[in-house]
């Protein structure tokens, strides 16, 4: 089975490497959705595969560059200013990102920085939308993104090099060395990225993004000891150094902001017979961020650190019997965090077990049933379930549906934070430390009875439904659509609990409200022989706080807004409520590939995002029709790839050709960018 899987991988990459523009009838395989290899066409779960071709097309350096071009995925600022991806209208903290199946850590307020993840040695990216907690546990209630590194087919060495130069004095160079001999293969990749950053607002002394440089080293080693035993080892090291500049009442502060990250994972897969195999995995990863600021006199003004370690071990068994595929896994994780503004260095232990059955009935109905049990120390265990059904109506139409539950545990910050903001004057206390701290303070005025703080936070839980259809009526035309509905309960938010003797507000975390995101995703592809291909994607999204909806419908609702025409307050009705912040009703993209001649390809991509609101501007805490909105915008990239010969190519292109910027509200979109990229391969 292993060799079978590998062969499939190899065959897949073979086709990938050989095709310059179009692949035909490729049986695309996806592994993240079920933890087993499964043909994408047969999978009853909404998934997107981003191919190597698509990664290479626009000279993508970082995951950010490629993932934000996908339908319904956008990188947005979270409430606390960090940036992360939003999928099906759900926040970044609900998506797990994996490299070769191993999770990436180092979340800042729930969000992973997509610019930390290099994609130059990535063969494909699998995006599983919808609940995946039944396989991956916490942080996967909205979906999973798995980056799969390149595999090699032929024996011998392969060296891939690329050198890219882009606006803002950005340089990205990568070197990949792969070697295969029989059952042994090794792949090493080294990336260096350096940029001067950019500044959208000239009038102040600060830059929007300060200069930084980063190195990524990844290594993968595979060795088949015998026909039955395959060893696999992954390691990675990442280092980022950035200049840190801030101001404090007019005086300039200087410092650095550094990130170091490493991971090491190893797995052994044992194939007992064609019906039974087992895999043991051990993985450890550490993320450490350090930053400091000095005054102009060189005196330390502020420093900050964040150090997170995850140790995970997992045992999986694959059993196949009479067309019934099953997987059973169990394992444990241990997490440790030490950071500034924490009263302790918390640890968290988890034991989990999961199982999944995959069966086909009447040759037409595919049923996948999965369940996972997560037992965190000191917390109520959580069970996540998922049922997926796929119906093949004819050869060309497949109807898919899945229902799943998911969860996200309270993170360390929500439990152990002990933060005082001296500039604005407020204190935030994690739920597990709040009572002790409050009892130590003098003359605290209770806003919320402190007894409510004595029970631990509940996990956020979700119910997600996806119903979709995939259709491939003729060879060169396909489309799919998917209706999704995600309900997340017991959302953890900070709430005012007390005022201290100086009237300073003290906040802590509570399970407060329920949000719902629902909508429709549509994708279609049309290919014209070998000349061109056009893709279109669209997502319609409604996302709102269900408590607000309930409240606003009442006659005595407290929700008013200022009508700026008449300068009087008016009562809001249900239609005035726009929904959650930072969600666009409409998002779409058009991708056009044109194969000019044997050597030259043209690519264009246009992405659109409709208006959205970033924050409440009229004091009612919700986003309503009278609030200030950020206008919708379009971004367009064009690129040309010229294949000088089979081993050498050159790309030039322009990103954001319209030069769209919104300096005031959108810091992650820089103006027009030019790039040139050379690739040379050696065999």
């Amino acid at each position, binding site marked *: 089975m292993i060799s079978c899987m590998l062969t499939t991988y190899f065959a897949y990459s073979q086709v990938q490497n050989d095709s310059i523009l179009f692949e035909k009838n490729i049986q695309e395989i996806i592994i993240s959705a079920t933890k087993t290899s499964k043909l994408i066409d047969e999978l009853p779960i909404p998934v997107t595969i981003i191919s190597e071709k698509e990664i290479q097309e626009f000279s993508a350096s970082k995951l950010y560059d490629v993932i934000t071009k996908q339908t319904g995925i956008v990188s947005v600022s979270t*409430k606390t*200013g960090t940036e992360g991806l939003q999928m099906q209208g759900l926040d970044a903290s609900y998506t797990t990102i994996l490299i070769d199946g191993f999770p990436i850590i180092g979340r800042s307020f729930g969000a992973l920085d997509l610019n930390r993840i290099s994609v130059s040695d990535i063969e494909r990216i699998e995006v599983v939308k919808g609940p995946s907690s039944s396989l991956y546990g916490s942080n996967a209630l909205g979906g999973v993104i798995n980056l799969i590194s390149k595999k090699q087919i032929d024996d011998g060495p392969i060296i891939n090099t690329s050198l890219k130069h882009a606006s803002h004095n950005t340089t990205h160079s990568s070197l990949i060395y792969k070697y295969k001999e029989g059952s042994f293969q090794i792949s090493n990749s080294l990336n260096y990225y350096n940029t001067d950053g950019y500044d959208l607002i000239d009038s*102040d002394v600060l830059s929007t993004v300060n200069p930084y440089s980063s190195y990524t080293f990844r290594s993968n080693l595979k060795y088949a000891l015998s026909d039955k035993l395959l060893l696999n080892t992954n390691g990675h090291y990442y280092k980022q150094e950035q200049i840190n500049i801030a101001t404090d009442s007019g005086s300039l502060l200087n410092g650095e902001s550094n990130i170091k990250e490493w991971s090491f994972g190893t797995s052994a897969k044992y194939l007992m017979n064609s019906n039974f195999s087992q895999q043991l995995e051990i993985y450890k990863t550490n993320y450490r961020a350090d930053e400091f600021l000095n005054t102009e006199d060189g005196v330390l003004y502020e420093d900050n650190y964040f150090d997170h370690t995850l140790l995970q071990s997992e045992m999986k068994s694959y059993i196949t019997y009479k067309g019934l595929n099953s997987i059973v896994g169990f394992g444990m994780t241990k997490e440790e965090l030490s950071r500034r503004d924490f009263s302790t260095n918390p640890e968290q232990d988890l034991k989990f077990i999961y199982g999944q059955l995959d069966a086909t009935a009447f040759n037409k109905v595919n049923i996948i049933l999965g369940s996972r049990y997560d037992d965190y120390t000191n917390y109520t265990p959580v069970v996540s379930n998922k049922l997926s059904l796929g119906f093949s109506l004819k050869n060309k139409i497949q109807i898919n549906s899945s229902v799943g539950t998911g969860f996200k545990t309270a993170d360390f910050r929500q439990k152990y934070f002990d933060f005082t903001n*001296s*500039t*604005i*004057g*407020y204190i935030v206390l994690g739920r597990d430390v709040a009572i002790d701290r409050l009892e130590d303070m003098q003359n605290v005025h209770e*806003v919320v009875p402190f007894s409510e703080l004595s029970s631990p936070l509940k996990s956020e839980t979700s119910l997600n439904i996806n119903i979709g259809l995939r259709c491939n009526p003729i060879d060169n035309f396909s489309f799919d659509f998917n209706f999704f509905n995600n309900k997340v309960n017991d959302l953890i938010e*900070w*709430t*005012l609990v007390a*005022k201290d003797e*100086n*009237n*300073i*507000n003290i*906040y802590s975390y509570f399970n407060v409200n329920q949000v719902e995101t629902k909508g429709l995703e549509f994708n279609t592809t049309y290919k014209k022989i070998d000349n061109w291909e056009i893709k279109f994607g669209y997502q319609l999204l409604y996302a709102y706080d269900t408590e607000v909806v309930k409240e606003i419908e009442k006659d005595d609702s*407290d*929700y*008013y*807004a*200022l009508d*700026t025409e*008449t*300068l*009087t*307050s*008016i*009562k809001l009705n249900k239609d005035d409520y726009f929904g959650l912040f930072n969600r666009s009703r409409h998002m779409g993209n058009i991708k056009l590939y044109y194969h000019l001649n044997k050597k030259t390809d043209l690519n264009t991509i246009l992405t659109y995002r409709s208006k959205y609101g*970033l*924050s*409440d*501007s*009229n*004091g*009612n*805490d919700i986003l309503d029709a*009278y609030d*200030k909105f950020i206008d919708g915008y379009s971004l367009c990239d064009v690129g040309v790839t010229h294949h000088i010969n089979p081993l050498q190519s050159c790309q030039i292109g322009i990103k954001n050709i319209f030069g769209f910027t919104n300096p*005031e509200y959108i810091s992650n979109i820089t103006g027009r960018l030019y790039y040139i990229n050379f690739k040379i391969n050696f065999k």
Partner: protein
Amino acid sequence: MIVNNTKYFALFSLFSLFLFTSCEKSSTEEILWWHGADVVELDASDFELNIADTSATGNFVKFSFLEGSIVAHDKWDVAFRGTSLIINGGEKAHNDQPDRTGDAAIYIATGSMVEINSVDTNRLLQDNSSGSAILNNIMIDDLGVSGQGWASYSFSTHLFSPRAGRILVFRTHDNKYAKMEIIYFYDSLNPDTGSGDIGGYYTFNYVCQLDGTTAF
């Protein structure tokens, strides 16, 4: 400094006329039952807040509903300094506050200016030595999370926004009644703390009932 906003003058003249006529029906004796409704801009930005102990420095700007203007004398009704709002009734909490010489009181009602058409005298509170009648010392300082004040504070933009549909209902220093809606807290429609907008520029809209009854 008071500026009558000419832009809204016509509109509010109409509004006053409407109120005036509706009141005439019940009584034809008095001509000046209402002070009418005005949009007032008031600069109370002369303040500095010391976060460490929440003490503030600067001058309170005193306002009289009857006169419809800033006053320097003792017969004021409400006074502003930065985010603080005090009334001329009860006791003062700090020495830097003006003396209370009248019988003013206050509460916050939920509704629009039109909907709030009577005074619930049971809810009226006066300033006391421990702070302002509303939310102790600094009325605005509930930062919008508990939703009890007349303004909210955004952690992402660092701006204070008056809460729509929160009407300040007053008893004046001389036992008349007034209602007020604070519309803006900055002198810019697109305030930005980064470019130095500090707030304390009040734009509000008020109606004062001069006959001492509790109906507006």
